[in-house]
């Protein structure tokens, strides 16, 4: 194992985050916190509790998930796309590093950053809404697992994209809508049966519900199913990455 290489890639990516602290940390934390101010402090009291949880608190896991998903994808995709774009990828391709080492470096850094962001958002949320965490270890487990899974997805997108527009495409057109429709702001049990059934095809429903269960001990769907789907998605991403490195897709001519 080329641990020096993993460390070099990881440190390089984390340095990038530090340089852009305002844009990469402060801004997402602030943006998400606005939801807590509005729904928690301002109008939350006028909305009925869901399963005995105040509305402001109910939406926290979903909003944390939203940030976790979009930030993981954005970070990891940018991390590998940028060297391709400016040509410095030559060094990575000529270095004695395995696909596993490259992925650990890039995906590890992206996931670290989005987990830190998620924790910051939760701390901020605690100021505005009555937050409780019933299963802290499960909560951390879901957090890390989801961060890694979506950073893997981001890595795939960063290899696939051949312009900046495509890089933004998936977070904006896929992840954000799926998260908003995936029970972040409501329990899918309140939906008419047809829409509830359709919602069950949305993978984010399972991510949000698994995560919410770790906070309030309640979920619209089985926690084990949530875990299984997250793992399944991770394996799918790993398979695609394995294929990318085996064929040199978009990396080597």
């Amino acid at each position: 194992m080329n641990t020096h290489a993993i460390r070099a890639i990881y440190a390089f990516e984390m340095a990038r985050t530090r340089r852009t602290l305002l844009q990469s940390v402060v801004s997402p934390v602030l943006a998400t916190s606005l939801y807590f101010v509005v729904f928690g402090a301002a109008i939350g009291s006028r909305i009925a509790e869901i399963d005995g949880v105040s509305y402001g608190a109910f939406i926290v896991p979903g909003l944390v998930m939203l940030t976790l998903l979009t930030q993981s994808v954005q970070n990891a995709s940018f991390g590998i796309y940028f060297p391709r774009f400016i040509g410095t990828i030559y060094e990575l391709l000529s270095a004695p590093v395995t696909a596993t080492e490259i992925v650990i470096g890039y995906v590890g850094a992206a996931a670290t950053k989005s987990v830190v962001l998620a924790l910051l958002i939760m701390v901020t949320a605690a100021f505005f809404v009555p937050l409780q965490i019933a299963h802290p270890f499960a909560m951390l487990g879901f957090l890390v697992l989801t961060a890694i899974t979506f950073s893997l997805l981001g890595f795939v997108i960063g290899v696939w994209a051949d312009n900046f527009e495509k890089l933004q495409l998936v977070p904006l057109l896929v992840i954000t809508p799926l998260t908003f429709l995936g029970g972040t702001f409501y329990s899918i049990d309140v939906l008419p049966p047809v829409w509830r059934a359709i919602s069950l095809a949305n993978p984010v429903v399972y991510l949000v519900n698994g995560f919410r269960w770790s906070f309030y001990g309640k979920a619209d769907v089985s926690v084990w199913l949530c875990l299984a789907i997250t793992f399944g998605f991770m394996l799918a991403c790993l398979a695609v990455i394995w294929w990318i490195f085996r064929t040199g897709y978009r990396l080597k001519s």
Partner: protein
Amino acid sequence: MEAAIEISGLSKVYASGHKALDGIDLEIRRGEIFALLGPNGAGKTTLIGIVCGLIRKSAGTVKVFGHDNVTSALQARKLVGLVPQELATDAFETVFDTVSFSRGLFGKPPAPAFVEKVLSDLSLADKRKSKIMTLSGGMKRRVMIAKALSHEPTVLFLDEPTAGVDVELRRDMWNVVRRLKAEGVTIILTTHYIDEAEEMADRVGIIDKGKLVLVEEKRDLMQKLGKKRLTLELAAPLAALPDELARFDLQLSADGSELVYSYDTRGERTGITALLSSLAAAGVRFRDLRTAESSLEEIFVSLTGRQQ
């Protein structure tokens, strides 16, 4: 002794259908400076790209110190440093950080003192804390060289290292190359400055349209294929070439002050004796004479049939 690089039957057909390399066989000896010459589009960058793992080959094998560069890619790559033709650097990192990054990427433990030395050899010492984007193009190229040297490669590829760089960088670079050679590093460079190959290389390969046209010791090559020129500085300028001298391959300079005689060093006789007695007979006297070997450039043109 095992070759530094052993290439056999190497071919590359790009997705576009273009055949960039066509059955290349080439052995690079340990510790030599090998210059690969060829016109634009000959396949030099493709060849380097395949050896370094940036481009997938279509057929053939490449071995670096006996390690196949695909099946034992990690062992092979550890030994190889690359300075690509195109300028490509990070922007926001500092010079020191980016060079240290390269060292780590190649699996070497941090060695700040060594990195400092590489930087100062390339006159980058005072730029170590500068962000790369603030550097000039020439400085960025120095950074790319420093990155390649940071991991102490055994084999170094320099793809057109001096194309479009200033005189100082050229000089610094050749100093670095000479020192690396003295340390036993094998160096493969492509260049279209033929005088550079002539000055630096131990052996020269000429590639054209994806095929190796020739590989020779530089010295042998210049002797074997080289023509020599004998230049006579005349005591008094001539208006025209006297008829008695018409049978010789002579050229009179525009101002009539010099006569240039071209002859083949491979020939049985050079014709110099005959020329000199004919000159005396015609009453043409000269003050001084000099000879010059023809340059690689002429050899190159005669082999590929075109100007670079």
